[in-house]
């Protein structure tokens, strides 16, 4: 048996860490969201004005809806890319499996920023894509909507988050005992029926986990709109960033952050329940 002192000593560092770098900042953010800036100075005057502004200014709602739309698109695209990829690797890649797995996750080791700039280079007016299209005489002038559009943001975020979606789905597929697939075929189900009735239902927890990654991470992203999005693709995190920066309205920024945090927490709570509902082992 361990002594109380020993247990306390073991528990102290992580508790200290969490308090100092998680709970305290959240508490500060929460407090700020009820304060206000008056004549360029932060006043500790408790009020609900920030939240009122949030729900009455159309711009914020509009940007938030756009953000949700972009995050949903990214989630959908990553699932459409990540699921077939994971399925192929798990069931049909044979001896190439390990190599392909490494290739899928290698981009995770490359800096986010580097990949962002790479997309900028590819999509720009004098970028790689436009150069190719003009060289092939598909277009005469550079296509401008490749870059600085919600499309570019969705493209870049899909590229970045597909491995995050792939990983939990692949893990779920790998955990399906192969005799289940054989039993299904043995009972008369062809590949399609086996996929729909056995493989897909048993991979739902991985699918939910992957979708959650893609959606939540996209929801809070501010670099992609900054690098390739332009004004038409401003996302909620960009608003927060400018409120904490140039606009110097920390209380309003904090209020938006609190809202995003609440949405994210409820999403995580909900998807965890869903995952449990679909877990059978």
């Amino acid at each position, binding site marked *: 048996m361990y002594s109380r002192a020993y247990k306390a000593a073991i528990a102290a560092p992580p508790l200290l860490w969490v308090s100092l770098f998680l709970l305290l900042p959240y508490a500060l953010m929460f407090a700020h969201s009820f304060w206000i800036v008056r004549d360029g100075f932060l006043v500790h005057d408790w009020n609900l004005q920030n939240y009122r502004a949030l729900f009455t200014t159309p711009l914020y709602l509009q940007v938030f809806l756009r953000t949700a739309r972009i995050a949903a698109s990214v989630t959908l695209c990553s699932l459409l890319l990540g699921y077939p990829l994971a399925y192929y690797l798990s069931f049909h890649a044979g001896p190439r499996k390990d190599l392909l797995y490494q290739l899928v996750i290698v981009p995770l080791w490359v800096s986010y920023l580097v990949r962002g700039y790479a997309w900028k280079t590819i999509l720009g007016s004098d970028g790689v894509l436009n150069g190719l299209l003009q060289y092939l005489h598909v277009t005469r002038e550079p296509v401008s909507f490749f870059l600085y559009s919600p499309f570019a943001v969705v493209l870049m975020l899909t590229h970045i988050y597909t491995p995050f979606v792939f990983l939990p789905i692949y893990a779920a597929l790998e955990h399906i*005992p192969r005799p289940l697939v054989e039993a*299904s075929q043995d009972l008369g189900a062809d590949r399609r029926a086996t996929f729909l009735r056995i493989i897909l239902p048993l991979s739902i927890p991985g699918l939910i986990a992957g979708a959650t990654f893609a959606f939540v991470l996209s929801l809070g992203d501010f670099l992609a709109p900054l690098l390739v999005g332009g004004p038409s693709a401003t996302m909620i995190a960009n608003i927060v960033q400018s409120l904490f920066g140039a606009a110097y309205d920390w209380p309003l920024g904090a209020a938006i952050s609190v809202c995003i945090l609440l949405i994210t927490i409820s999403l995580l709570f909900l998807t965890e329940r869903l995952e449990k509902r679909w877990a059978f082992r």
Partner: protein
Amino acid sequence: MSGAAISPGHVTSADALLEVRGAAKNFGAVCVLKNISLQIAAGEFLTLLGESGSGKTTLLRLIAGFEQPTSGEIWMGNERLDTLPPYKRRVNTVFQNYALFPHLSVRENVAYGLRVKSTPKGEIAGRVEEALRMVKMIGFADARPATLSGGQQQRIALARALINRPQLLLLDEPLSALDANLRKQMQSELKALQREIGIAFLFVTHDQDEAMALSDRIALLRNGALEQVASPREIYSRPATAYAAEFIGQTNLLRGEINNGMVRCGALQWKTSEAGGPALFSVRPEAIQLADIVDDTTGIVQFRGTIQQQIYSGASELLEIDCGENQVLRVRIPASGPLTGEREFVFSAADAVRVTESSDAHASPSKDHESQ
């Protein structure tokens, strides 16, 4: 292999339900099945018996369609099976660890084979109930597989495999995950069920007692080849090879020479009508008896030996007899109290079954095991 010579219009022989013709299977450079030919009759309980690595499960998987034969063919009636995907074959499988679908209820598991064939809902309900009643699991229709015991899962796996009314059921070591008592009980239930529904069972096991208890015929596999295919009684009383004799039950292998109508195996000798040359005989321990006074020695082999060991096991005891010339024989006699010293023993020459050396040179009994 020779499978190529078979005409495409081939039909299995009238009494065979399924016929494996010259099937071979290689995994890369490893040959796990060599030229297997085997027939299964309708309603028959045939057991594939062998050690792990003998190829018995691979043969089952070839028939189920989870593996493709490297050469050879599998026929069922006038339908060639080995070119069909598993879902088009009219055979069903009970898997080793049951492979029940964890996300479906017992009812949905059993109904699966009918659902995927778009059977009308009303018919499904009736047939699922019938199948569950057959395996005595009628009260568990709404349970999840994970909440059931091993024996119960076993029954559901059986009901699920039988719902499509196959003519041939494949069972891959279905009882190996059960504890000893339950195993015995399931053995007799399985046999009763097979008699009741009258379909052929192809049963894979490594347990020779299980094979003896259940089978109409046993196909003994060794290193990917068939060693002997015969009824349990025949394979025990007339083993074809030294391996078959040793794998099924205990035996004494006597190595010797036949010369001028006489067999000589170390200290033992008897008359024979067989042709000369080196020979190997199997004598079951229970075929040898403590000698009383023998008047007529025709067809009787008599020898003297020293009792080295006596192992008591309730109804019988096993004696290890040193007969000299490095020959030790095992003798099983009815329990008869402590015995020591030199004794006379006899067995009938007819109980010395001539067996062939095992086909595989690597695994043939070495000098040390000779005439144990």
